[in-house]
């Protein structure tokens, strides 16, 4: 099929689109010459930067006045589509607001959703999205069969972002319909959790800790090592669920996907849930007591040993170098 028009669910702050948005716009350009960004918020401030990544237009809802993005964005998109502005494909980021919007829109349009993808392509008459399953060991390609728009969401870092050098995107204001009680949820306060050092999903080095650390206070070793290496600390789902560290530290299927130059897994056995989030790292170092731990199957350097012994020595050695 010919893809005439692709939309990207775009996000950003202070005039900068997120890296995720830039990745999706880059992919969208490969599918169609006609790419538009949809911003649930102030799209005008992002127009120049979105244009650089190839968006010709940016549809902007303006300030949502505390409404949650999912309901508002899906209603605005559905109204545009009902009015005849119908894209063939809409690309969403696999994140909180991307998922909410995609889900609401699928019901409004009566179309299926394909989520967690790492690629999308046009194959003859079909649009095919690919998702990794079983911890990334198997690639599962699914074709959309019904009418479009085809709705697909993607994992972060599925595509490399490249600028197209395009002109600022034309800003088109769109109206958010009144959704009555469906839109009754309101944001009353916003909390930003401050972190020092590089962001987990952008850091060149990530040091993650897991249940093998034994108890919550030992996570300090992970933080110290990450700091020494100018990296970011991460965590397995097990210790996030146990309340040792905030959810924002979680690497894995339900957390962040990271692809640093070096990933150090300390006391992490390597559950599928975790591996999905870090297997794309360039180099992996694993320290674990259990030599049968699945993490060793993906590690470039595996140390079968006690994290409580290895980490302090490693930290000392690195300190003595600086």
């Amino acid at each position, binding site marked *: 099929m010919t893809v005439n028009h692709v939309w990207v669910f775009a996000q950003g702050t202070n005039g900068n689109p997120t890296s995720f948005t830039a990745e999706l716009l880059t992919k969208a350009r490969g599918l169609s010459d006609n790419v538009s960004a949809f911003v649930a918020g102030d799209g005008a401030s992002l127009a120049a930067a979105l244009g650089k990544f190839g968006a010709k237009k940016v549809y902007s809802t303006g300030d949502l006045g505390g409404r949650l993005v999912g309901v508002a964005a899906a209603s605005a998109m559905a109204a545009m589509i009902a009015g005849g502005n119908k894209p063939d494909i809409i690309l969403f980021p696999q994140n909180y607001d991307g998922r909410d919007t995609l889900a609401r829109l699928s019901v409004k349009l009566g179309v299926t*959703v394909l989520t967690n993808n790492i690629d999308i392509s046009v194959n003859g008459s079909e649009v095919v999205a690919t998702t990794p399953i079983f911890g990334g060991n198997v*690639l599962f390609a699914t074709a959309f069969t019904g009418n479009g728009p085809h709705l697909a969401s993607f994992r972060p870092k599925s595509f490399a972002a490249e600028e197209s050098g395009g002109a600022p995107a034309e800003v088109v204001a769109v109206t958010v319909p009144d959704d009555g009680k469906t839109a009754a949820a309101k944001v009353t306060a916003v909390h930003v959790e401050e972190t020092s050092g590089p962001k987990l999903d952008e850091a060149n080095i990530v040091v993650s800790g897991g249940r093998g650390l034994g108890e919550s206070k030992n996570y300090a070793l992970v933080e110290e090592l990450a700091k020494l290496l100018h990296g970011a600390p991460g965590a397995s789902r097990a210790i996030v669920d146990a309340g040792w560290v905030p959810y924002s530290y979680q690497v894995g299927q339900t957390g962040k996907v990271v692809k640093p130059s070096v990933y150090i897994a300390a006391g992490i056995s390597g559950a599928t849930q975790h591996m999905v989030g870090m297997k794309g790292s360039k180099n992996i170092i694993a320290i674990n007591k259990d030599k049968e731990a699945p993490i060793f199957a993906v590690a470039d350097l595996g140390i079968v040993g006690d994290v409580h012994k290895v980490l302090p020595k490693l930290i000392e050695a690195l300190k003595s170098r600086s």
Partner: protein
Amino acid sequence: MNGMKIVVCVKQIPDPATPGSLDPSTNALLRSGKLILDDSDAYGVEMALQLATAAGGGEVSIVSMAPNGEMSGMRTALAMGAVRGVLVSDPALAGSDALTTAKVLAAAIQKVGTPDLVIAATESTDGYTGTVPEQIAEVLGLPSVTFAKKVKVEGGTLKIDRQTEAGYDEVECPLPALVSVTAGVVEPRYPSFKGIMDAKKKEIVTLTAADLGVSPVGWSGAGQKVSSVSQAEARKAGQVIEDDGEAFGKIVAFLETLKVI
């Protein structure tokens, strides 16, 4: 408020500890054999039980969709304290996409009655499409708050801390509503022996897609088909060494060759 009616959507899945496999003829995820309550759903069940208690009573029901009339996972939720269950089980449902699943579960929720609150996990552990809760809310015309990491009800209004990329938002939402909860939102209780015994006597109503008037379902209702299944390029294992007290030196040397220190 007095007496809160809560429905929790739960999924029964193959034990995640055992490797997953695909049906060789349809390439669908194999869900035969004994199924267990998805760990992610234990948080929702616990949340519901705590909210009902805080509201001074009420009842927690569960709905589930599963092949082969499987109920063992639902019994776990009943043993925790849910009072009844509705199971939609129908061979015709095999191959259903997330949208169809949401329509089926929404219809099952309406069979239970009109709840004050619907609770689900953010995504299942086996299929993790991650859209079903929000789709159910849209089908039912309910407001929703997803990725809740803290939930309470005050004067008929939900007060929720919702996970965001940057931190969290405080969100208020009137009832009735749907909430999806993250793992760790509360500490799920272990079913007591009495709970397990009582659960065997609790009612689970079994319905088909036709009973609920949802059609088309299954493969024919899904707006998608399997295109291909292939092996991903496997990552190779490197060097694995036993720590002799000096293994930290190997890490330092490796970091040096990578020029990151």
